[in-house]
């Protein structure tokens, strides 16, 4: 889809609700990325305990963390796409529909 300028965009109740939900999704995924970003085994389980023995924090520890971390932004993007798709169906003006459609499909180049 080609990017287009949207003039006179006024958000309806449905759009405002969708924006709130997207903000929540953004907040959750950033929080999760922060937690998993430092989410090695030791950080999650041993932070408040005395480390009695040396645990091997090997490459596997970081590999599994990376798995989770790469999945989160992709999940976030998909959830936002679904919210945008549903909202595009619920709004009545051409401008609002175009706005949500652009978020749903993405756009390239254009004006």
């Amino acid at each position: 889809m080609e990017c287009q300028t949207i003039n006179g965009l006024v958000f309806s109740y449905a759009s405002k609700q969708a924006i709130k939900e997207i903000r929540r999704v953004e907040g959750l995924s950033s929080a999760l990325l922060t937690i998993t970003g430092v989410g090695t085994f030791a950080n999650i389980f041993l932070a408040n305990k005395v480390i009695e023995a040396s645990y091997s924090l090997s490459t596997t520890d970081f590999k599994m963390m990376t798995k989770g971390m790469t999945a989160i932004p992709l999940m976030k993007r998909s959830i936002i796409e679904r919210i945008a798709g549903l909202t595009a169906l619920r709004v009545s003006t051409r401008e609002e529909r175009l706005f949500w459609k652009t978020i749903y499909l993405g756009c390239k180049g254009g004006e």
Partner: protein
Amino acid sequence: MNKFINFTIFISLFLFSFYANSESSPEYQKLLLEKYYSSIDRYQKQEKNCKDISKVLPREIFSKIKINSSDLSVVLGYHFYKSFFECTATSRSEYFLVAPLLALESKKAREMVATSTELLMFDHKALIQVEMDYSMLDARLRNKLSTIQKLKSPFLLLESFELLEAENKSNDK
């Protein structure tokens, strides 16, 4: 008496949480964490797969049913989330078998699980919201719709809506 019961419950919960936190071996916790990350990864892959197999609904899908434009958005919104939710059910169950166990292990793990669970359940929340509107539709219409197989597989929401809306408009002329 009530005070005694409350005190006993408090002590039991305290001892249980202490037991739960102190009993697990680092090896157990490490495996649990690995399973947790893997379940998130598998969920995302299944979600992508469900999206990849999604198609635009055929224009004749409602040829025997009369649906106006505002009901069309309700019908498609509900079936879109329902079919998507069912398509991702296996990996979601896998996550829910591991995540609560991980949450028992530490405060930080609990915080992480609460955040990821809310993110994973976002579509379920959306499904319940669209279901509220869908349940207001005529029962006979809902019965007819429940027999349409194509609505049970994931589909492209907006693309299908635009096609069927255009179809509705051309039939009205």
